[in-house]
């Protein structure tokens, strides 16, 4: 509960006490539900279009094109010129040194800054044009290619950070250093929740297939920073309880738990009557919501009601817990339940070497499932108000790191341009945005800084990124930092 809203809390307490009368605690907490809008107490049912709980009073700032978002984060830095940023001229420049006129003294990570040569490594993968928009897409992403006309492909996202920890912290929280609020926590704080029985911000961390050590991720990527901690992302786990401590202890069934909660509520109502602290009322309510989550979460994660043709869409991993495919299917179920923001962190995209071996494995993990997610949302009428985003924290270099052959090579981190795609929720479908040079090294047209990207995501959700602020450390903090950045409205309808 936000301490910044004490009057609202208190009003809530007073209202309930008015309903019950000072002495009528014998009603028990179960009866509480019947006095409130029924949807709030029906497990897994959304509050409905117009109702959101919590959130800022002045939000949305304007009519949103998306009510919710699903962010597929490809952690490690997918190689843009092997997937989307087609550079045919490179084919003739195998093992030629990257011209200094292109590199322009750009800083390099210390993994390759000591290299004596920067030999160009043309992509070994075949590209073709797809859809009405004739977007170039690599053979590694056949399913993504099929939905080319659903996507806005942005080839000119850029960042300043060149190493994983700062770069991923930057794109997820707007700052390279720990301590700031993540995108999802901003959305929870600003827009509130649309489902009283599920968290507003859910995170999944599925498995991955590349063979080399995967980069770390950090709880801070979905942390709330200076925002109150109820806005932090809640991990939906594939191991143990899907939400931490969701299950009753061994030997305690739902009826026993219900009796326990009724007893706790009885005592707590006495405390409330005696002392009058609204926090006590809040606690009574939170215990009730905990109980409802014990139903709504298992109902969410139980895939038994998914028909075979849907499972087939997501591919063979759809029922394997903890895979990217299973996570995408859950993301759709979360969107159906009006969960505001879902973020899936797929790791393993850091191909310093062995692109030929590892990149196809990574693509296999995500390609079909991401396609299925978009199609599934579309066929349910959810895509129109669900924003879907795909991409990593930076790109990779056109020059080779380590051994270079026609058949295999590695690539270092590259911050100056990388490719992401967006779809749904007001995104203009079927477009490719921005242009990079022949080396996929520099942006030549329409740069999109990661702050611009985040501003665009906020914009789709009805938020002016300059006006969603929180006073902390002497500043009106915001996701997009203190410098001027803009939502890329060209990407939106």
């Amino acid at each position: 509960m936000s301490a910044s809203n004490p009057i609202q809390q208190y009003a809530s307490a007073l209202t309930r006490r008015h309903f019950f009368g000072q002495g009528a605690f014998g009603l028990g907490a179960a009866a509480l539900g019947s006095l409130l809008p029924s949807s709030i107490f029906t497990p897994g049912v959304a509050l409905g279009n117009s109702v959101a709980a919590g959130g800022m009073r002045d939000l949305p700032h304007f009519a949103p094109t998306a009510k919710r978002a699903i962010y597929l984060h490809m952690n490690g830095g997918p190689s843009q010129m092997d997937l989307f940023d087609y550079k045919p001229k490179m084919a003739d420049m195998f093992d030629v040194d990257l011209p200094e006129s292109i590199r322009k003294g750009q800083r390099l990570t210390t993994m390759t800054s000591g290299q004596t040569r920067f030999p160009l490594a043309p992509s070994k993968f075949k590209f073709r044009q797809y859809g009405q928009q004739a977007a170039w897409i690599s053979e590694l992403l056949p399913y993504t290619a099929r939905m080319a006309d659903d996507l806005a492909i942005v080839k000119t996202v850029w960042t300043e950070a060149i190493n994983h920890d700062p770069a991923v912290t930057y794109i997820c929280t707007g700052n390279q250093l720990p301590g700031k609020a993540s995108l999802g926590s901003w959305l929870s704080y600003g827009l509130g929740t649309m489902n009283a029985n599920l968290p507003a911000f859910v995170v999944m961390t599925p498995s991955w297939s590349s063979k080399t050590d995967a980069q770390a991720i950090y709880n801070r990527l979905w942390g709330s920073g200076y925002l109150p901690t109820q806005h932090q992302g809640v991990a939906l786990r594939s191991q143990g309880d899907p939400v931490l401590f969701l299950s009753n202890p061994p030997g305690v069934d739902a009826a026993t738990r219900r009796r326990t909660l009724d007893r706790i509520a009885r005592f707590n109502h006495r405390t409330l009557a005696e002392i009058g602290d609204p926090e006590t009322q809040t606690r009574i309510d939170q215990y009730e919501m905990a109980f409802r989550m014990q139903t709504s979460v298992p109902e969410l994660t139980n895939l038994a009601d998914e028909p075979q043709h849907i499972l087939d869409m997501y591919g063979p991993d759809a029922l394997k817990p903890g895979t990217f495919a299973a996570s995408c299917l859950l993301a759709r179920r979360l969107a159906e339940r009006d969960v505001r923001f879902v973020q899936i962190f797929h790791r393993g995209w850091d191909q310093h070497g062995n692109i030929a071996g590892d990149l196809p494995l990574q693509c296999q993990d995500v390609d079909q499932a991401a396609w299925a997610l978009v199609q599934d949302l579309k066929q349910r009428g959810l895509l129109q108000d669900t924003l879907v985003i795909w991409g990593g924290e930076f790109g990779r270099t056109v020059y080779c790191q380590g051994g270079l052959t026609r058949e295999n090579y590695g690539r270092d981190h590259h911050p100056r341009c990388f490719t992401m795609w967006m779809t749904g929720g007001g995104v203009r479908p079927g477009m490719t945005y921005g242009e990079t040079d022949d080396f996929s090294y520099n942006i030549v047209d329409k740069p999109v800084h990661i702050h611009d990207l985040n501003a665009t995501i906020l914009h789709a959700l009805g938020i002016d990124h300059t006006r969603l602020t929180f006073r902390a450390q002497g500043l009106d903090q915001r996701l997009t930092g203190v410098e001027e950045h803009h939502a890329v409205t060209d990407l939106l309808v």
Partner: protein
Amino acid sequence: MARRGTLLIASLSIAAVAFLATGSLPARAGAINFSRDVRPILSDKCFACHGPEAASRKAGFRLDERESAVGAAESGMTPITPGDPDASELIARITSEDESVRMPPTNSHKSLTPEEIETLRRWIAEGAEWQAHWSFTPPVKHDPPAVAHEHWPRETLDKFILARLEREQLAPAVEADRVTLLRRVTLDLTGLPPTPAEMDDFLADNRPDAYERAVDRLLASPRFGEHMARFWLDAARYGDTHGLHLDNYREMWPYRDWVVRAFNRNLPFNEFIVEQLAGDLLPSPTDEQLIATGFNRCHVSTNEGGVIPEEVYVTAVVDRVETFGTVMLGLTVGCTRCHDHKYDPLTQGDFYSLFAYFNSLDGNEMDGNREDPAPVIRAPLPEQTARLAELDQQIAAAETKLAADWPELDAQQADWERQFVSAVEPENVGGSGSPPEAVAANSKDYLAVSEWHWVGPFSDPERYLKSKKHGPEGAERIDLAEKFKLATGEEVGWVRKPEWVDGQVHNDLPGDPAANFLFRTITVGKPQDLEISLGSDDGIRVYLNNELLLQRDDSRSAAADQEKLVLKLKRGENRLLVKILNFAGQSGFYFAVKTDQPIMPPDVLAAASRHAAERSADDAKLVRQFFRNTAARSAALDQLRTELAAVRKERTDVDTAVATTLIFKEMATPKPSYILNRGEYDQHGAEVTRRTPTMLPPMEAAAPNNRLGLAQWLVSPANPLPARVAVNRFWQQFFGVGLVKTTNDFGAQGEAPSHPELLDWLAVDFMEHGWDVKRLVRELVVSAAYRQTSHVSPELYMRDPENRLLARGARFRLDAEMLRDQALYSSGLLVEKMGGPSVKPPQPAGLWEAVGYSGSNTVKFVADEGHEKVHRRTLYTFIKRTAPPPEMNTFDAPSRESCIVRRERTNTPLQALLLLNDPQYVEAARSLAERTMHEGGDSVEQRARFLFQTATCRQPRVDELSDLVAAYEQELEHFRANAKAAEELIASGSLKADEKLDRPELAAWTMAANVVLNLDEVVTRN
């Protein structure tokens, strides 16, 4: 997650909504006060363009300084005409209907409310007085205000609280009942609730100062330090991993224990600060003072492949400066990393001048993924120090015994010594360091081989190396005292090289190209042949008794058996000189003796060759030691040796287990500091020197201009900030909200204090009494303000929801650590061992793996086992910063990635799930149930009473008791019918349930305990 539906606020009055919008401090009447009423408006709405930062200043005037504001702007207009709002352009602009001229401009997304405009108008009408920002002027100890209810105040601070309440026409609340009071103060001072016995004692204590006595008892408890340390460790951002990238283990807990000890021994707070900031610069610092400097090493660090060291360095130093600013000054100095401060008179130059105090760590800012990136210090635990001393004693005793007279062995030795009876002829002794003349004539089994001596390097081109003689080469005798002149003019002599043991390649000869000489003696009792093996990098010459035996000029790496030679040794001392020639690259040699004969050091041989009666005491010892170590045959001796070896091994083990901890140590020559344009590590601007911010009083001229000087400047009475900032944090701890709510920001954008005179009084009083923390804490908790009941009427709640006026006692949820500690303590599980390595109580599987780097040494969580580790106070729980323990994280404990001086207090369903279902809390419920059955008496009612009282510290009322009894009986019936469920429930946790207890009964009590441990009043400090 939010709880409420929007419908519920419909019934609110308009007034309450307006109140909500204007912030949490109740409104005031009376004259306009610049600091309280005006500066916050100007700061928030105007300073960004008309404030301290020159670069972004518009229209040529600033509103943070009177002179500029009442003078002419660029346009010639006068922003403010004191006394005449209508002649003030400022009023014209903020009230304009024309959007294009109205201030603040639309693109700032700021606007003024009608109330704010009215405040500014009145302020100008009343003369537009400026005041320096309150926190930048020294605190003054005002006389406490007069109050009407003179009987209420107990402490001076109460008068300030009461005067304000009287002004607001509010009355303080009555004192809380004694049960509530003891629980409150016990939790606040120790982090644990009182035991029923402590409660009984207190209730039975009729002395008028019973409460003060209880407070003194609690202040003296070692739990006090454990509890107080937690708050500081949030600020100091202490963690058990590096926090970035691999997030490997960092051994830092001795610093955590230092903080606990510092609070327990009531280290004056000024010294507490000085030792942490600059303990290493104090004259002859103690180990404790060095451990304290870990404060400046607690920041997160990285060793990510590819990072740029300069960037890592800047990031680390910036963290130190920002933490210093937040914790010590209560200022957001981080803003000035990139530009001058927009709200406070701090410049970018100030930032990098502070940076210069913290930038010269004598070590690498990259952590190397090591647990002990230098500089570190060994920090043995008291028990380790004690054990090492014990073992040293045991070793000394055994050694004494080994060296003592031992008739049986001494007889054996006399027999053994007969082989060394006669004297060797005095030849070749010279100055070559040879043994004394007496060498055993018939000691044929022994070879006396001296250690190597070395001299070099004699540099020369390759062909001269091969052709010329150098240094000692060709001399009649070897004189180990002789000096040689090198081509460089440097003089060198022979150096002992005991580390060059035989049978290994030694590649540490200097010079390229160069020659080096090795020399040793071999002494034998009669002439004999001796086979040796040699290797060299590159060329080699071997001389025996001045005769050249071998010459090779190959270019090669040294290895065993490159050369084999048979030395024809004469009786007595033989001199072996080896010349190693290096033509290029590294240089080294190999040497080994091929013999089955025992090799005896010449000094032992020489001593043994004398008659026992003629030996010096040292020689006698030498011979006895050698004999007993090599030749003696005795079961008793063997046993003693075995014991000694075991003790030595334990000593090594204990010694190896001694922790290190990161400390700060200054480089010999400090690094230069530059203004970094836009805060970027590679954008050097002008070089700056160390100095304190100009807006604060200067450092004393005589003070050293280093971290020590900075720390002393910080705590000097002239500095207006640190005492206020510290006192405010303590206030926050005991009253829930600070007198300044923005604990981390005392600048213009921070909130003004609710009781400015009180804050000043406390700050000055704190300094006047030697920064005595226990005294201050005592003052706070014995005050009448602190003792009030927290009961609140709707009217009072609406008036002051955050309780800033303190017309009632504070009531808030327990912090994460206190919740778990209380559950363990009430259930009798808590292990109160203090200090030591952090522990890993169980947590759900997969939390670390979900985020960790595959190659990190903290990617896999392995829970500790055993009561001693699983049930420690939560202060000692291992904090992996990128995936903190859910018991902490869920209840607003920070991840310790950055400095935090105020925790949020949220109330969420995830907290409910954790308290209900976390196996650690279920185990606590079961253990509390066991206690209830063992200690609670025989009847269900007695037991229910015991259970309730143990958890809440109070007696249940009749209805509560009957509810609890009914709960137990209902669950008992349930578990009698579901025996398997009972078994499953009580099997929770790392300890086994008492087998003798009836299973369904224990299960039913466990569920009753689960209820009680989840009660609002139990999870709340009231």
